């Protein structure tokens, strides 16, 4: 094969042409040799990337027919239940794409489903990064880029959701309008600036359109570029395992193996999205009718990734609005923006907070199993529970109807969980993690209970334990469980206040922990067992039970 390639004059000629003008071989060599470890959870970011490609392709198609204008007209298209109804050109053109353009409805649905999958894959990817500690040095900046990608993804989704100018999207915009107006002092000005006057005005669709098809995707592409560049620069992280060190990456090279797999994966995601788009309705704008500020339908919700903010608004009691010197402070609404700031701020700050807390400023290329860092895992679960409570609150009305509950009770329960849920999540998760770690210790020290009871010659009964194999044992023992670093004095011999705070936090977070099994413990356990088993029985029996433990014989 390689002979035919090098022999082809055309190929060598053109390769030389490109190489002498771009010097691309260095980049291809660098990127082609990048190693990807194989694990399913490492592919979630790729899913987001491929969904984004589908979004770009289907979105381009939609721009060919969509009219981002709010001029009023009467619909005369083929969808009978709306014929003669007064609507904006934006809504009419979306109906046109859905019912008149060949394949238009399919591509609209593909675009929308891809957006939902994009955000879902992004979120799951972020959770994977968090729970395995992949954001630690040197990857903190890339973690921040990822957080920015989530924020921009939400912006892209929301601007797109608002474009068709149907009842649902208009209601969503009304909430955005309310959020903007709730900003103290400048709120009304900001809202009037965005909408070009009083809500809804006649400008908003064309303005959102510019953001949706130009600004936001451009920023997204730039961020994705930076994100992937960092992935190459930092090299991939990997799970702990025999032969996996902080200085190597064990996996498949991009060229040829991983590139082939990745290409296939792109088409699988593409076809999965096509399948969903072809079979399942999404955002049936023809049901919602044209936007009119007066009606609001029951079951009006934003797309899932905005849901948590909507849910927070639903949980918020109305009495949090008050007046200062005659000016209303709509804290009941404005706090949704604060909550978003808290969540995103916490995500950005966490890597630095953790490094400060633990005093660990080393590079980390080996991931941690979630159970092996119980504190982080518990904090992550607490944040997830908090998010989920707000998310559930966004669909409180549907929960009430489908489970035959009182809407008020659902709201009260979720309000309580808003405060208690994260705390419970933290406590339970930490206990579970510590328990799992103890189970791991148990496994390493005593092996797996085989269920075989043997009787020794002197009459004693024992259960045979099968030692875990060395590869599994590596996974179970290769982790760190650093003790909290106590408050230390600085160069002047003074313990600063910040250091004492840090030590308090560290104590709280890392006081309870489980040490990994050391070699000495392993040897000791082995000898103990040997002692038990000894007493007149033959060596073969001991070998069957403990033969896999290599040391100490």
């Amino acid at each position, binding site marked *: 094969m390689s002979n035919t390639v090098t022999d082809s004059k055309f190929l060598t000629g053109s390769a030389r042409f490109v190489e002498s003008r771009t010097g691309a071989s260095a980049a291809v060599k660098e990127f082609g040799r990048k190693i990807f470890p194989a694990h399913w959870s490492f592919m979630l970011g790729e899913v987001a990337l491929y969904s984004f490609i589908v979004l770009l392709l289907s979105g381009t198609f939609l721009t060919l027919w969509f009219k981002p204008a709010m001029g009023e007209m009467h619909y005369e298209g083929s969808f009978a239940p709306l014929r003669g109804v007064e609507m904006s050109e934006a809504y009419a053109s979306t109906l046109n794409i859905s019912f008149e353009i060949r394949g238009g409805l399919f591509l609209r649905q593909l675009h929308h489903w891809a957006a939902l999958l994009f955000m879902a894959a992004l979120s799951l990817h972020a959770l994977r990064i968090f729970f395995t500690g992949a954001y630690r040095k040197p990857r903190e900046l890339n973690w921040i880029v990822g957080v920015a990608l989530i924020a921009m993804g939400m912006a892209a989704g929301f601007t797109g959701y608002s474009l068709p100018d149907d009842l649902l999207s208009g209601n969503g915009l009304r909430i955005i309008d309310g959020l903007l107006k709730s900003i103290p002092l400048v709120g009304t000005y900001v809202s009037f600036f965005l909408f070009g006057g009083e809500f809804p005005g006649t400008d908003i669709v064309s303005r959102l359109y510019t953001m949706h098809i130009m600004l936001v995707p451009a920023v997204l592409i730039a961020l994705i570029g930076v994100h992937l560049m960092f992935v190459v620069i930092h090299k991939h992280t990997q799970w702990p395992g025999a032969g996996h060190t902080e200085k190597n990456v064990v996996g498949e090279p991009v060229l040829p193996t991983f590139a082939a797999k990745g290409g296939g994966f792109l088409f699988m995601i593409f076809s999965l999205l096509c399948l969903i788009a072809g079979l*399942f*309705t999404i955002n049936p704008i023809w049901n919602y009718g044209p936007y*009119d500020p007066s009606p609001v339908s029951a*079951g009006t919700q934003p797309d899932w990734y905005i849901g948590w903010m909507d849910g927070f608004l639903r949980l918020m009691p109305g009495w949090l609005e008050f007046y200062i010197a005659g000016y209303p402070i709509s804290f009941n609404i404005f706090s949704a923006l604060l909550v978003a700031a808290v969540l995103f701020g916490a995500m950005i700050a966490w890597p630095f907070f953790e490094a400060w807390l633990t005093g660990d400023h080393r590079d980390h290329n080996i991931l941690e199993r979630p159970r092996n860092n119980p504190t982080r895992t518990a904090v992550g679960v607490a944040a997830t529970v908090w998010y989920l409570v707000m998310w559930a609150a966004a669909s409180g009305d549907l929960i009430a109807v489908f489970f035959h509950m*009182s809407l008020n009770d659902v709201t009260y329960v979720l309000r309580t969980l808003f405060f208690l849920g994260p705390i419970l999540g933290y406590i339970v998760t930490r206990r579970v993690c510590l328990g799992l770690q103890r189970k791991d210790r148990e496994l390493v020290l005593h092996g797996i209970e085989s269920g075989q009871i043997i009787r020794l010659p002197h009459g004693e009964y024992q259960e045979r334990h099968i030692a875990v194999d060395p590869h599994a044992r590596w996974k179970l023992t290769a982790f760190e469980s650093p003790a909290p670093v106590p408050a230390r004095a600085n160069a002047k011999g003074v313990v600063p206040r910040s250091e004492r705070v840090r030590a308090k936090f560290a104590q709280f977070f890392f006081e309870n922990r489980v040490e990994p099994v050391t070699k000495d413990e392993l040897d000791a356990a082995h000898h103990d067992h040997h002692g038990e088993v000894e007493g007149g029985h033959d060596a073969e029996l001991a070998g069957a039970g403990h033969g896999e433990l290599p040391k100490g014989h």
Partner: protein
Amino acid sequence: MKLLSARRRHPMALVVLLLVGLLLTGGAYALFTSNSSAKAQEYSSDDVAQGQKLFVANCATCHGMSGQGTENGPSLVGVGASSVDFQVGTGRMPLQMSGPQGQVKKQQFNQDQIDQLAAYVASMGPGPSVPEGDYLDASKGDPAKGGGLFRTNCAMCHNVVGAGGALTRGKYAPNLQNVSEKHLYEAMQTGPQNMPIFNDANLTPEQKRDVIAYVRNASEEPSPGGFKLGALGPVAEGLFIWFFGLAAVIGITVWLTARSK
């Protein structure tokens, strides 16, 4: 005439005169206030008598022996035949259990018995009668106009396509997809349970028909985009992408990274 003048001093003359007077005023009242949407239904006195028996046996516990209402149930004077036809016809009455709202269940009476009950309740005082005919024919309505009316008047509780929605404290607006034209009309006309009344000044009979045409169209027309996922909007779509879309994706990733054995 001679017959009349001869008996004008008959002891019963006053009674007859009173009766005629009452009938005339009552008839005129009924004529001017009657529901123009549906032709007044004729019930025989036998229907009323049968209805009373059914009423006493099944309804009086809560509504009182003569429908005057008790602590446990409202007065039925003036609710009209239409209300009875809706409440009993959809199985909501007699109540399955007490709760925030009457539940739809299997009808407890057949249509003849419902008519008899309606006759009895209608005899307590004038109220909207059971709609008939033209205004129930969805094909004569304009679903586009009805859609506009539905979004303005109904969608905030029943959802844009009538999929239903939550109200306060366990009450809810039911799904409208399998509700008959007659029951849709009666519900608008009588405002059962938590629903407001849309009388003929609010929504004319023609407009009610447009609304019915819209609801029928929304629930019967095939969905252009494929499976509707309950027509519940973004929540159902979000759940679908997480539990089916992302689950399929994870299945693919596990398959792609599986080691050949």
